[in-house]
């Protein structure tokens, strides 16, 4: 084993290490905490660059450690894992910046950032897992490391929500465990290989395999928020904004969707799934989830809950892409993993900014917010239009490929689902945009919410950050509407969602990488 077989391990360690260090930091040592966070993020980005280069040349980098006889802990970097790892790494970097700005005056920051980094480490572990057992281990770890983030606020609602979250995810994890063990007894150890490794099994095992498929998909489906397993997600919105952003865009729901993609492509193999006849029910479930999530989002007045139901709907696009047999649908589903992440994290950043700066939590309070916070609203607009599928934003590219793939597979009803979902998306996003840009606010804006210590009355947005803020003063005032630490990540992800669509045809786009992944799977 040479040094570069350790690269996947280093990928995980580059955030797990800072996590441990941060746990031991004093609450007030902003500087060190920021340094550790940023160091981890930058190292991880560099490592990722090396991995992308290697994998693009066609190499697969793997790392094995035997755990028990017949059980190996295996990490590897293939094209699909890099897609997810790349998304997690990039968005972790931006979310860390955001979280520093967001939580700068709240208690328990060391605990928060420690678990935050651990959560990203486990996500990278899920991305890099080389076999089902390793994936399962990291998947269970993810449930445990995100729980402290969900209940971070420590009040009654967040404890209840955390409880609900644990029940759902541990239940899903148990189902997954049974499925994995059953499969293990049938075929022994299961590595992730392109086109899957089960196609050679004798026909009499097919009934068992169908059941196992269902258990694995439902186990992952809890985190992917497939209806009817989505109940935890809207409640988990009590978490602080950076957590919601990362949970929705990257860590949790994406881990579920990624798991389903792995099961379909790299365990069973899409062609074998097609022969087993398990794809149609999965497609049906995904389509139902897409429409149901959008439908429920319509009725939510709480902005974060509306976004949560939107996530329920959008993540199922990925599942739908996996469930439609054909290379184009594969591309559409896989690329949506990245596109949805970029767009949804933008929306959550913006929702966090509205809440943090002006205390706005409800859609009905957003009238005229575009005048007060134009740049945040610009980012929100890009994200929302992208979700609707307006070209040239990233969401359009996903829908184009999904629609194309569905037609190739002879499933034109999927087009109707996509169209209906776009209409519903428009119906719940456009009123927000309308209120923000064209609405008229009649009462003055509330004083900026930032965690201003009692007794200091902030006269205006420019000077509400107190003097002991860990970031330099110019960062707080440069943007005028809110702290630059909160604004810049939102603008960056908005710009990335736009670029992912505009430059879709170039070789730097998520679409290019998704095509590269697809080549391996057919």
């Amino acid at each position, binding site marked *: 084993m040479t040094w570069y077989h350790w690269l996947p391990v280093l990928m995980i360690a580059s955030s797990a290490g800072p996590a441990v260090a941060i746990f031991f930091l004093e609450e007030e040592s902003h500087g060190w905490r920021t340094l550790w966070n940023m160091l981890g993020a930058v190292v991880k980005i560099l490592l990722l660059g090396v991995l992308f280069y290697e994998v693009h040349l066609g190499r697969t980098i793997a790392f094995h450690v035997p755990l028990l006889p017949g059980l190996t802990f295996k990490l590897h970097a293939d094209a699909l894992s890099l897609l997810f790892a790349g998304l997690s790494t990039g968005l972790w970097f931006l979310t860390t910046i955001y979280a520093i700005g967001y939580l700068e005056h709240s208690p328990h920051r060391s605990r928060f950032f420690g678990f935050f980094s651990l959560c990203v480490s486990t996500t990278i572990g899920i991305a890099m897992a080389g076999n089902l057992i390793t994936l399962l281990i990291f998947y269970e770890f993810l449930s445990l490391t995100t729980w402290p983030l969900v209940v971070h606020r420590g009040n009654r609602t967040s404890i209840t929500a955390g409880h609900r979250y644990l029940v759902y995810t541990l239940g899903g994890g148990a189902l997954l465990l049974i499925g994995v063990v059953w499969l293990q007894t049938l075929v022994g150890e299961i590595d992730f290989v392109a086109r899957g490794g089960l196609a050679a099994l004798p026909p009499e095992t097919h009934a068992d395999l169908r059941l196992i498929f269902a258990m694995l998909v439902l186990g992952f489906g809890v985190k992917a928020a497939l209806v009817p397993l989505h109940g935890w997600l809207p409640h988990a919105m009590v978490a602080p904004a950076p957590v919601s952003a990362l949970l929705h865009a990257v860590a949790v729901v994406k881990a579920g969707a990624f798991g389903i993609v792995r099961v379909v492509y790299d365990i069973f193999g899409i062609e074998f799934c097609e022969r087993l006849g398990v794809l149609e029910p999965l497609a049906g479930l995904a389509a139902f989830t897409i429409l149901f999530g959008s439908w429920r989002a319509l*009725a*939510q007045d709480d902005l974060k809950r509306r976004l949560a139901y939107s996530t329920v709907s959008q993540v199922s696009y990925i599942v739908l892409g996996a469930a439609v047999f054909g290379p184009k649908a594969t591309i559409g589903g896989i690329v949506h993993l990245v596109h949805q992440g970029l767009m949804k994290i933008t929306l959550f950043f913006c929702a966090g900014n509205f809440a943090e700066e002006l205390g706005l939590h409800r859609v009905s309070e957003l*009238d005229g917010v575009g005048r007060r916070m134009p740049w945040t609203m610009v980012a929100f607009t890009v994200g929302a239009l992208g979700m609707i599928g*307006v070209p040239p934003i990233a969401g359009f590219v996903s829908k184009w490929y999904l629609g194309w793939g569905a037609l190739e597979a002879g499933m034109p009803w999927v*087009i109707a689902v996509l*169209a209906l979902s*776009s209409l519903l998306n428009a119906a719940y996003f456009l009123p927000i945009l309308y*209120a923000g840009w064209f609405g008229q606010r009649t009462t003055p804006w509330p004083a900026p919410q930032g965690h201003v210590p009692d007794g200091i009355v902030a006269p205006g947005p420019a000077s509400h950050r107190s003097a002991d803020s860990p970031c330099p003063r110019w960062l707080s005032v440069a943007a005028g509407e809110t702290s630059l630490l909160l604004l810049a990540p939102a603008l960056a992800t908005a710009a990335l969602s736009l670029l992912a669509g505009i*430059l879709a045809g170039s070789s730097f786009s998520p679409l290019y990488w998704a095509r590269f992944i697809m080549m391996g799977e057919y």
Partner: protein
Amino acid sequence: MALLLVLALLSPWAVLAFLLASRDAPTDEEVAPDGPARGEAGAGARPRWRLLAPWTPLPALLAALFLPEDLALELPWLFLGALLRLDRPARLFLGLTAAVWLAAGWYARGYLPTTGERPPGERRFWGWFLATMGGNLLLVPCQDMVSFTAFFTAMSLAAYGLVIHHPSARNLAAGRVYLALAILGEVLAFAGLVWACQVAQGEVSFAAAGAALAASPARDAVLWLLIAGFGIKLGLVPLHVWLPLAHPAAPTPASAVLSGVIIKTGLLLWWRVFPWGAGALLPGAFLVVAGLAGTFGAALVGLVQTDPKALLAYSSVSQMGLVALMAGLGLIADAHAGAEIAPLLTGLGLFAVHHGLTKGALFLGVGLAQTSLSTGGRRLVMAGLALLGASLAGFPLTSGQAAKAWLKALLPLAGPAWQPAFERLVPLSGVTTMLLLLRFLALLPRAGKPGAPAAPLAMLLPWAGLGLGTVLLPVILVGAGGFPPAALGLSGAGMAKAALPPLAAMAMAAFVWWKAPAAAERCRAGLAVPAGDLLHLTRFFSAAAAVQATAPTAPGATSPNAGGPPAFSLVGESPSGEARSPAGQEAARPPALAWCLSVLAGGEGFSTGLLLMVLLAAGLALLL
């Protein structure tokens, strides 16, 4: 060369960037009510964008005129592989689009101050205006589906900002209808285009898609989606309901571009992607029927409007009905059986240019008539508008005559069984159009509003420029070659034929005006279909349902301003055509109700009107 084209097309976005970056504009709070008028501010104080903005479409116009034909640019990294080419239709549409935008831009410069606008509103208007223009100019040379839809969407969404520029309750309701239909159109168009792309084995270029569609079993399904998706933009009946609401709502220069060029973008897409001459019977027949319904139905509904801009919008629906009719014939025709499609495409382009210039100028004229003009000036404007109306009706020596003569020569595409019927119906549309435009002239104010400012040259010149276009178009066409005068109806017999329908309409109007003005007014009042016709039908039914469900609650009482209602309600509050009545919200139901009831019960005005119409139609049929 290709770079020049791109730079020319990007100019609106560049100016928009200037506008957004400029910090000069005082915000709402800073504007003193008695601040200096714009004219006194002096050129030195003007920010750069305000100097540049009216000139923005000029580079595109020059590109259309002077760049070499078939200039192509392939950008595989852009979208899903973009392809821009300045082929002949692109040049034609680019020229038209840039010309109308140029005129509207200059007009807006004179128009905005006269309506009491102050810089903040002006800035907002120009922001949306430039964004809409940016989408519209860029989509013209796009030869692939993805870049076309991207710019098409930018144009559609930005135009919403123009529709609700004056955010009154009525305009907001109009904006909601516009936006709902625009989004519906986007979604249908998306489905149709993806399907076309799949049929073409993943090729996104229009040429590949059109060719693949012609032979595909999915042809009709794709056609239905494209007809509906882009028919919304074109004002195809029954998806036209946004036009008569949005056109009056938008500021006048914006109405001119909406009706002059934006609705033509739907036609451009059809032109590029339809499998012409593939013998697609059902979709083609639908287009023919919808086109006929639009041509005549919209003209009749337009006759009872009281707002000149709503009337012009109905006239646009009616004229686009002719386009849909011809497009339908082109779809039904079978190229394998020897049907010639190329002249049809030329004719559609000709008609688009004619209608774009004429309708743009007509809309600009509405704003002119509202200013205070000298008696001579008003006479001039009225005469000009009469000429434009005559052109729309196909009066001899106008662009309308040229375009219609060209299209009429193509009616044999309908086949020998149907050809005679169409040859009677199409001239009849000249009669209805002329009647409509005469009513339009009657609706224009006889004098400016008291205290209205004088019409600045910036408003008069663009109007006159577009108007001259409609007169000179036949001359240019013949002069430029490729168009024999006889094919444009420029012969003695052709002119006599072309003059007959408008003259008949004038005679009819004169008769009604002299002998039975009271009966005509009764008939109009009885038939008062509010602008947005079919929408009121659904509103009537939903209102009735609401009344049954909850008797005490006033139906349709949801306010559009009340902080983002959770659902995006299409059926909100009244975009009533009777918006002049001060009753406001309460007026929402009565006109629709009265209309439905009068239809059901056959009120006096209604039966008189119906009788009159039937008699007129019968007389005309005999005459022709």
